[in-house]
């Protein structure tokens, strides 16, 4: 009958367990095995098929609140591209901090590739307001939307950008997105210009995107921390030399995040299970009385 006391448990105990379940795996990674899914594999395989002559457009369409989900995706994809010497054009369309995120991630990753030259191997064009209008215009001419790069150099002075006029010169668009901007890339750019679009989405918006994936409008999809961790797994399997980057203590990545997710999910599910066992014991004793607290399913 001891379990019944669980029903009256102080919610703060649950809070404490969730806090520890999140913190400990970040500091001391457990390393749960990560299995991969098709939408992630298709994303990875597409980049795998590209080489030094191809250009990827990476759009930072997220802000600081969803960085734990989107940033590891950005890091893994940039590493993948730079390792394969694929050229990358970085832009930001998310108004609330997209350009800050892009700058941070680019600074972090380019430090690992000292041979890369800005303007030749990659370009950072900065932020543009009004996502949809900007996307349409880039179909005609990038320079009309971004006359200069983030540091103020005219695009004509960047060797990479003399090769890239519009979407025709882009092999793949990658949108790292927290909200509706990814849908614009699909509905507007993919539909009109046929450039393949792959999306790194937050867990909350991912389910909606399965329809685009089915319809072939989206080439690949990473959903939340889980999707990011799958990409990291594929990357490390393909490029073992990158492993040290993902073993550094005190550096967050999606596999560590996934450890935290797994533990927190397990804690919550365990509590739900025990709660129901206790509930049944109580109900059997009370003779079908049951408790009426909580309003689930009363509408």
């Amino acid at each position, binding site marked *: 009958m001891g379990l019944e006391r669980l029903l009256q448990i102080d*919610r703060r105990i649950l809070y404490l367990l969730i806090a520890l379940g999140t913190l400990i795996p970040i500091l001391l990674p457990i390393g749960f095995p990560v299995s991969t899914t098709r939408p992630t594999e298709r994303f990875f395989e597409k980049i795998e098929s590209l080489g030094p002559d191809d250009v990827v457009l990476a759009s930072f369409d997220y802000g600081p609140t969803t960085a734990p989900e989107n940033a590891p995706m950005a890091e893994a994809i940039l590493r993948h591209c730079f390792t394969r010497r694929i050229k990358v054009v970085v832009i930001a369309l998310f108004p609330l901090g997209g350009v800050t995120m892009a700058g941070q991630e680019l600074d972090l990753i380019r430090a690992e590739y000292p041979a890369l030259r800005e303007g030749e191997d990659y370009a950072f064009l900065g932020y543009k307001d009004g996502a949809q209008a900007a996307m349409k215009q880039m179909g005609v001419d990038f320079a009309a939307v971004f006359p200069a790069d983030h540091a103020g150099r005219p695009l004509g002075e960047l060797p990479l950008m003399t090769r890239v006029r519009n979407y025709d010169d882009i092999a793949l668009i990658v949108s790292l997105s927290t909200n509706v901007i990814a849908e614009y890339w699909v509905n507007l750019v993919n539909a009109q210009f046929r450039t393949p679009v792959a999306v790194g989405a937050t867990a*909350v918006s991912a389910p909606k995107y399965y329809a685009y994936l089915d319809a072939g409008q989206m080439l690949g999809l990473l959903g939340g921390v889980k999707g990011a961790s799958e990409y990291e797994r594929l990357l490390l399997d393909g490029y073992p030399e990158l492993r040290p980057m993902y073993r550094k203590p005190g550096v967050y990545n999606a596999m560590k995040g996934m450890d935290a997710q797994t533990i927190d999910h397990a804690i919550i599910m365990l509590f739900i299970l025990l709660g129901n066992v206790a509930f049944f014991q109580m109900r059997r004793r009370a003779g079908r009385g049951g408790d009426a607290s*909580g*309003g*689930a*399913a*009363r*509408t």
Partner: protein
Amino acid sequence: MNAAPWFEPTRVGAPLVLLLVFSALVLFFIHLSRRGREIFIRRIAGIAAIEEAIGRATELGRKVLYLPGSASVDDNQTIASLAVMRHVASLSASYGADLSVLNKDPLTFAAARETVQEAYLQAGRPDLFTPDRVTYVTYDQFAFTAAVAGIMVRERPAANFFIGAYQAESLLLAETGQSVGAMQIAGTAEVTQLPFFAVVCDYTLMGEELYAAGAYLSKEPAMLGSIKGQDFTKAGLILCILVGVTLEIFGVHWLKQAMTIR
């Protein structure tokens, strides 16, 4: 077609037909009902519970908290909420309950002040209306949530109304309210937030129920007539789905194409 350049081609097909049929049905039933035809609308549990919640708060001598959601009056959910708020204010005035309306949006705040003040006036208790019944907190979603959560734990309201447009703050508010033992009635048409209200609150007005609530509470013939017109449109859409699915089975696609907006 001669008239073609006058009309937006992507908008005049199915959407215009729907608009006309819908408006005609609503107007027709408003007309019928004004002429004295009885209109039956089934009982909606969440609406019936409003009076109970206010009565309970009055007995306990604790506050009634009403939050009209995070949107401005440009969202119809807010307009629907103001209609419910009017009823809650009127009941609070006649019961002598201590109502407090907290706002995130400034225009909603302006409208709420009119609504509540007039409701107190018409309930014959202008003496109970003080300006601090309706207050403005802040424009930020989470700053607003923090402030309201603080108020909840300090003042321990006995009834919480979360009616209107809600975003991620829904669960923060409802959980805090639950922890202080308030009876909670929520109402929103935000599909993403309905699960949290439905799980935590005692009653939840879902989607269409929120919009119907004000009309239902007013019991005015014209209001009820409009609900009837909307119901008939819904029946028409159910029929449209059945017919459309049948046509699809036989490989006839015109209805689906007419309803696919390019």
